């Protein structure tokens, strides 16, 4: 479904992603792991279209989207959640989600009819709120949510655009054990409908959820395979996992 061929990105003299070749098959949860600074968020940014890709190709559902602007990729079925929460803080949870639903339901160059009259939008938003476990907080202003709730909303916004592929950038960042379990459950449910590219540091989550894992170190993919394979791979252990498993 998603194919990266030789994707690279430099910032001045620094090479952030280096000739990355990767593919995500439909229906899988594909985890992307690696040490801090390995270039994972940069890669997500390139796939999402927020960062320009000068060399390499990004192919989504057979179409070359390398030069497509971010908003067009969303329309094509690609959504992304952020590592550092980026929601509409002064909007309520309902309004946050309704906005994402609105983005996917036709043009918003409508100037006269009040949005509140469009019940369908808000019904869908409520449904998603239910899925992400925020039904009871639906009218709360997003800025007042607890961290875990905000991360759930963060993912919810991506889901609300009805994507085929979701890029989750460390959804469990900064979460305690309870919230993490809830997020793992959410992703497990989500996978029935969407394909997931998951960037995470939480190895428990990764090994529970992932069909396949790719390891990114210094901007390069050093290994790809089933979880058991990756776990046993000596190079991976040396570069990254060794620290995680020993701990």
């Amino acid at each position, binding site marked *: 479904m998603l194919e990266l061929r030789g994707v690279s990105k430099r910032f001045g003299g620094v090479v952030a992603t280096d000739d990355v070749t990767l593919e995500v098959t439909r229906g899988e949860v594909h985890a992307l792991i690696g040490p801090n600074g390995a270039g994972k968020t940069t890669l997500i940014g390139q796939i999402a279209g927020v960062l320009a890709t000068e060399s390499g190709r990004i192919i989504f559902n057979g179409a070359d989207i390398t030069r497509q602007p971010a908003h067009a990729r969303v329309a094509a079925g690609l959504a992304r959640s952020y590592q550092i929460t980026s929601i509409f803080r002064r909007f309520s949870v309902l309004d946050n989600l309704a906005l994402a639903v609105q983005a996917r339901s036709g043009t918003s160059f409508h*100037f006269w009819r009040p*949005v509140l009259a469009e019940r369908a939008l808000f019904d869908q938003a409520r449904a998603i709120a239910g899925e992400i476990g925020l039904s009871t907080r639906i009218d709360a202003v997003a800025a007042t949510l607890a961290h875990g709730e905000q991360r759930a909303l963060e993912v919810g916004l991506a889901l609300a655009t009805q994507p085929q592929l979701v890029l989750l950038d460390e959804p469990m960042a900064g979460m305690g054990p309870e919230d993490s379990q809830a997020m793992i459950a959410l992703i497990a449910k989500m996978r029935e409908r969407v394909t997931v590219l998951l960037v995470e540091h939480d190895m428990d989550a990764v090994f529970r959820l992932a069909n396949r894992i790719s390891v990114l170190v210094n901007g390069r993919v050093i290994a790809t395979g089933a979880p058991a394979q990756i776990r046993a791979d000596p190079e991976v252990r040396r570069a990254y996992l060794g620290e995680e498993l020993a701990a």
Partner: protein
Amino acid sequence: MRAIAVFLLLAIFPLVMQAMDNLFYVSFASRVLIYAIAATSLNLVLGYGGMVSFGHAAFFGGGAFVVGILAVEGLRSAWIAWPIAIAVAALAALVIGALSLRTRGVYFIMITLAFAQMIYYIFVSLKSYGGDDGLQMPGRSTLGFGTLGNDLVWYYVVLCILAAVLYAMHRLVHSRFGRVIAAIRENEARAEAIGFPVYRYQLLCFVIAGGIGGLAGALIANQSSYVSPSLLHWIQSGTLMIMVILGGVGTLWGGVIGAAVLLGLEHLIADYRIAWLAKLAPNYQDHAGLAVGIVLLTIVMLAPEGISGFFGRRRHA
């Protein structure tokens, strides 16, 4: 509803004035209402849209000059001249916006300022249309029936237009488009990330605001049948911004309140002698600008989150 009450008051007011045989205030009021329209158009792009445009005078003054030039060339019908003014202003906004909205932050502020100055210099160099001295019009626009020359009639025309503009803004703000604009103001990156082509929405908002600014310009030219080049100067842009800030950034009535407060304050200082103040400073009335400056400075410095903090004041549905 509150709005209806306000408009009823505004509608009765000139009749009261006429009864009191004091038509000066009717003329003053129509001037305030015209600036209210101009400030409201800026509020759309600045308050709701979050785009700090420092070049709004280009559309306001531009609209005025279009009407003025057409009038001098013989085209005085409001039905033709005013729509042309709106169209020209909207077109200018399209060009300026298309270029400026590629930039962000301070570059955006500077580039809108610079473009407006460009337009100022172009019009000022048109010697045959007044140049530095401004353009005198043969009179107000014609409607084909009745006359706009009557200050009372003129007031009601302006009042109706203001009501229409405010209503349209109200609908716009609560529409799909309005929501997207608000979302972009709140978190531009995320708005793009959930699939909205941010640039297009911002540009359209900018064009709409420019067009309404042009309408206000057409009206101000008619107010005194004279078009001053100062309408295009960046100080005018600043004055409109002051009105928006005073009245309430991102609120429906912000432009109206701001125009009323600012022009009212200037008028009070200039035309009403406060005895004890006059003893301290005999010609304090020549320096109304000082009071405006101090008031503005105080508001800006004391605003808790800065002016942008006011953006969130409106409750979202």
